[in-house]
């Protein structure tokens, strides 16, 4: 890198180490920031530091939080009878947006993935098992609909069932609000397979 300075190159390297950011995008972001006034860049760096300093894991559900336990775990309005298990904190956000789930969460921080060296011990599985007390009636498994999510779902189901808790998984189905004919064939095929009686 002869035509660029070392400090620019460092920032580009840092940006391109982020998920889904390629080198081109990293360069674009770097040059954009370089053109901004010092205050803007300052806001960025202090916001990052503040976030890192204040955010920790909730010691119950392992979602990110500023207060421990997190607002959801400490809320009296939310049912303790149901725990919804997800892979990432962003999944909590997605389900919260529905405004339809009144139980608690548990964040695994990933799914089983041998190729990336992620086994059950690298996930918050032991912590989930510890939470299954008499007052928990149901565990909803809401993992990603891919190979790794599916296998983790099976693994958790085997661990949880002997504990006498009802284990369910979210349905794989057709998106509502559009015509059936516009649904992806593979999704539709699975939806037919997973049909339920009325």
């Amino acid at each position, binding site marked *: 890198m002869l035509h660029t300075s070392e400090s620019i190159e460092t920032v580009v390297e840092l940006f391109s180490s982020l998920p889904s950011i*390629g080198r081109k995008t990293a360069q674009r972001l770097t040059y954009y920031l370089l053109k901004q006034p010092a205050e803007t860049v300052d806001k960025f760096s202090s916001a990052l530091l503040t976030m890192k300093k204040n955010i920790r894991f909730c010691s119950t559900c392992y979602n990110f939080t500023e207060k421990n336990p997190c607002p959801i775990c400490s809320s009296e309005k939310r049912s303790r009878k149901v725990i919804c298990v997800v892979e990432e904190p962003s999944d909590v956000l997605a389900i919260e947006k529905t405004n339809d789930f009144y139980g608690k969460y548990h964040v695994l921080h990933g799914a*089983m993935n*041998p*190729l990336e060296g992620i*086994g059950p011990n690298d996930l918050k599985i032991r912590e989930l098992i510890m939470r299954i007390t008499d007052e928990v009636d149901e565990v909803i498994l809401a993992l990603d609909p891919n190979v790794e999510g599916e*296998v983790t779902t099976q*693994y958790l189901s*085997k661990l949880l069932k002997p504990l006498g808790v009802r284990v369910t998984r979210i349905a794989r189905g057709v998106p509502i609000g559009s015509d059936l004919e516009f649904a992806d*064939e593979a999704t539709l*095929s699975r939806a037919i397979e997973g049909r339920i009686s009325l």
Partner: protein
Amino acid sequence: MHLRSLSLMNLRNHDQTDVEFSPVLNIIEGANGAGKTTILEGIAICGLSKSFLPTTETLMIRKTADFYRASAAALTDLGVPYKIAVQYAAGSRKMIGSSIGENLSPKEIIGEMPLIILSPDFKEITFGSPDHRRRFIDMMLSQASKRYAEESLNLKRILKQRNNILSQAKQHGTVNEDILEVWTGSFIETSAEIAHRRLHFISEFAPYFLEAYRQVTSVDERVEIRYEPDSLPPEITAVSPSIADLEAAYLAVAKRRKTEELRRGVTVFGAQKDDMYIGINGGNAREYASQGQHKSLLIALKAAEFEYLRNAKNEMPIMLFDDIFSELDKMRTERVFRNILNSGAQTFITTTESESLRRSLPGGIDVAFFRVTSGIAERIS
């Protein structure tokens, strides 16, 4: 379906190519290495998200460029426009957008523009190793069913994960039984799903194949085709088994061969090892067919693929023939040619010399000729 136009950017030796096609017959002429096959590859990228040749994606990007792009405009049989663009830059995910939407995954576009491809590489289907026949089935079924495309990608992924566990087990001499068990379960479920679909497929495909072979050859020869699963006993596959039957059979194999898998550190059974048996006059075509019979079998497989896919999709597939006429004798060429033209499918043929093809063309046909020289395509009269 037929293609109206195709644009290529930085694909192999094509810098920028824009061509408009005849809805019937397109003959693309050029010397070896001129870039005529690249036009067919561009069409394949638009239909299958990747080339039909075994190749590395990054090697398809023109030297000095950092991405390639292929885009096409087509019309369905009902006259509905269909547009598709696929762009690939080294190190990033393929960007796919079509009339269906933006940011698509390959499985969302496979089959939208059904393709039948015949290239000299495909000779291996009738006399090569089983993977050539599996690829033949997979390419056809993935176009016919999105669910199949998805399951077949899942099988590859699960196999990779499971092999990783087994090779770790071999290395360390120990394995976490619970982890292996769930991956085995998932592997068996997906293998059974795929084997079930392939078994059902062959039973539908066989009559098309037998009929096509009869049409390609004039002599009376007995051909047969059947699915040959690697790890399942014949008494199970003979009686149109359910998915549950297949799962139970795989589970038995998994138990029986577990020690072997742990010792070798690799998966030794499953749908990724299956084969398709092609027989001629009572023997295995791989060993018994003559050169001429191999050619006829291949053409019959492709003709049957055309009929099968047309019925499955209710849409006319587009035919791509890569330099295949140089492989055929005059009699077969003319017969194949006539059948293609009769089918009404849009056809693309690459050739090093178009003179003999020109001569065998019936009059009054809507044909477009193209000449490709060093990555530049021009329409000629």
